[in-house]
C-alpha cells in the first residue's frame, strides 16, 4: 500500500506542521531569550493576527494592508502586556510571570470571543497561490508561504541574536539582568522590544497560517502548547533549536498519523517526542554554559 508518493505526502505534511509549530516556538524563544519569561500568551498573538487580518480583509481591505494593520495592533497588545502586566511584576519569580501571561491569555480569549463570536474563519490562499502536485503528492498553495515565513524568521532571528550587538544585548538581559544594566543596557526597553517583536511575529504567523488551518477565538492555547513543546524539545535558548524542535514535533505527528495504527497516532507522536526529550536531556541543541 505504501508508495513513495504517500511517504512524500507525510513528509510534506510534517514540514508544514513543523514550520507552524516552529514559528510559534520562535515567538516564545524571543521573549524567553530576553526576559526569561515563558509567554503563554504567544498563541493569542497568533490568534489575534489571524482574526484581525480576517476582520479587515472581510471588511474590504486588501490583503497586505489588512495584515499590516493586524500586526500593528498585535504589537500594541504585546506592548500593553509588557507595560501593564509584566513590567510591574518584573521582580517576581519566573513561575509567577508565566501565570501572569496565562491570565492575560484567558482574558484575550474572552475578549476575542465576545467580539468575534465562536465561528471559525478562513482566508483564501495568498494571491491565490496554486496547489503544487509533486510525484503524486500535493503541496497546498499556502504551504510555501508558511515555510518561507518561518525560514525568514529563523534566519533573521539567528542573525540578529547571534551577530548584532543589539541582539547580543537582548540575550544579555536574560542571561544576567543586573549585569546587563551595569554595562548600560536598559533591560526594561529590551524587554518591551522583545514583547513587541514576539507579538508581531505571532501576528504574521497567525495571518499566514489562516488559509491553511482556519482561525477562531480559541486556537491560541493549543498552538501555544505545540509551540512550547517545539521550543523545549529543541532547546529554547537557540533559534535553530526551536526550528529543529518544531520539525521534530511536526514530523512525528505527520508520520505517526500516516503510518501508525489509526487511533493511536496521538500517543505515538508524543511518545516519540518524549523519547527525544529523554535522550537529549538538555534539548536537541543547547546553548552551552547555561541550562
Amino acid at each position, binding site marked *: 500500500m505504501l508508495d513513495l508518493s504517500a511517504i512524500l505526502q507525510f513528509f510534506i505534511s510534517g514540514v508544514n506542521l513543523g514550520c507552524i509549530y516552529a514559528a510559534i516556538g520562535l515567538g516564545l524563544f524571543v521573549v524567553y531569550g530576553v526576559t526569561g519569561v515563558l509567554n503563554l500568551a504567544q498563541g493569542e498573538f497568533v490568534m489575534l493576527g489571524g482574526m484581525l487580518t480576517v476582520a479587515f480583509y472581510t471588511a474590504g481591505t486588501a490583503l497586505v494592508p489588512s495584515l499590516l494593520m493586524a500586526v500593528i495592533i498585535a504589537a500594541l497588545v504585546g506592548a500593553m502586556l509588557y507595560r501593564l*502586566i509584566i513590567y*510591574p*511584576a518584573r*521582580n517576581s*519569580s519566573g*513561575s509567577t510571570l508565566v501565570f501572569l501571561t496565562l491570565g492575560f491569555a484567558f482574558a484575550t480569549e*474572552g475578549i476575542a470571543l465576545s467580539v468575534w463570536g465562536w465561528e471559525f474563519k478562513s482566508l483564501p490562499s495568498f494571491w491565490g497561490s496554486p496547489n503544487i502536485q509533486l510525484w503524486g503528492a500535493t503541496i497546498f498553495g499556502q504551504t510555501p508561504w508558511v515555510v518561507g515565513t518561518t525560514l525568514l524568521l529563523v534566519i533573521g532571528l539567528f542573525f540578529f541574536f547571534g551577530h548584532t550587538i543589539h541582539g547580543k544585548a537582548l540575550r544579555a538581559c536574560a542571561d544576567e539582568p543586573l549585569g546587563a544594566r551595569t554595562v548600560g543596557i536598559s533591560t526594561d526597553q529590551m524587554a518591551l522590544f522583545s514583547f513587541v517583536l514576539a507579538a508581531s511575529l505571532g501576528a504574521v504567523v497567525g495571518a499566514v497560517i489562516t488559509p491553511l488551518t482556519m482561525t477562531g477565538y480559541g486556537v491560541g492555547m493549543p498552538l501555544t502548547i505545540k509551540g512550547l513543546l517545539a521550543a523545549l524539545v529543541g532547546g529554547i535558548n537557540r533559534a535553530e533549536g526551536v526550528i529543529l524542535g518544531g520539525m521534530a514535533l511536526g514530523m512525528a505527528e505527520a508520520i505517526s498519523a500516516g503510518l501508525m495504527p489509526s487511533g493511536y497516532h*496521538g500517543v505515538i507522536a508524543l511518545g516519540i517526542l*518524549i523519547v527525544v526529550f*529523554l535522550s537529549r536531556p538538555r534539548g536537541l541543541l543547547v546553548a552551552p554554559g547555561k541550562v
Partner: protein
Amino acid sequence: MRTVKEKIRALLSGREHRMVLALFAVVLMTVPLVAGPYGVIVMVDVGLYSIVTMGLILLMGFAGQISLGQGVFFGLGAYMSGIITTRCGLSPWLVLLVAAVAAGAVAIVVGRALVRLRGLIVAGVTLALNLVFCSLVVSLRDLTGGATGLPLIPRLPLGGFAPSNTLFSYYVVWIVAILLLVFSLNLVNSRTGRALKSVNLLAGGSEDTAQVLGVDIIRYKVQVFAVGAIYASIAGSLYAHYTGCIEPGAFGVHFSVLVAIMAIIGGMTSPWGAFLGAGLIVSVNEALREVMPAVVGGSTGAYELIAYGSILVATLLFLPQGLMSIWRRLQPQERFR
C-alpha cells in the same frame, strides 16, 4: 539567644502550626452544619483540588521541579479506581490504596527519567506525558470507555452501606486532606524538607552544594515526584467515586495547569498555600457564576473568562508570592522573606 532557640524548637515541633491546624480542622468539620448543601458540594471540589495542589507544592515549591502533568496521576488514580471497582467489584477503599501505590510506582519510573532533565524541559515532558495520557485513555476505549467516559462507578462504602454521597464525600475528602497536610507540614519542616529545598533550582537551591552536603539529589527528587503522584492519585480515586462517571477531559492539560495556578496563587512556600489557592480559584469561579448574569445577562461565558483572567493577573500582581505571603507579612519579626 534563648528566643532564637525557642523559635526554632517551635518551628520544628510543629507547635507553630498546631493551633492553626486544630482550628482549621474544627472549622472544616463544622462547615456542613452552617453552609448549605451547595456550599458542601463546592467544598468537596476545593478539598480534591487542594490535595493535588499540595502534592504539586511539595514538588514545585520545595524541590523546584516544574510539573505540568499532575493530571496524569489524578487520572491514573481515577481510572484505576473506576476500572477495577466496576470490573472486579473489589472494595473501593482497597483499590484506592492499590491505585496510590501503583501511581507512586509509575512516578518512580517516570521520575528516574525526569531527574536527568534540565530546567524547563521537565515542564515540556510532563506536559507531553499529560497529552499522551489523555490520548491513551481515548485510544484504549474497551478498557476506559474512551472519550465517552466510564460510567457507573460505585460510591465509597462505609461499613455495609453507602451514606449520603455529598456529605460523606465531604468528610472523607477533608479528613484525607488534613492528614496529608499534617504529613506535608512535618515533611517540610524537617531534614527531608531542607533536602528538598536544597535541590530547588527554581528558588535558590544548588545541586552541587546539596550533594557536597550529602544529599542524594536523585533519590529526593524521585521520592518527592512519587509523593506528588500519590497525592494526585488519592484525589483522583476519591473524585471517581464521588462523581460516579469519569471522562478523559477531566485529566487533561487544562486540569494540570489549573492545579499549577492554584499552587502559584496560594503560595508555594508552604503546603497551606494549596488550600488558599484552591479555595480562591474555586470561589472566584463560583462568585463569577453568581455575579456575572446580573451584570451582563444572557450568555456570560466570555465575560466570565475575561474576569477570571483579570482576577488571576490582579492577584499575581498584588501578591506575587501568593496568598501565603499575606500571612508572612503579618509576622513582623520574621525577617526571612
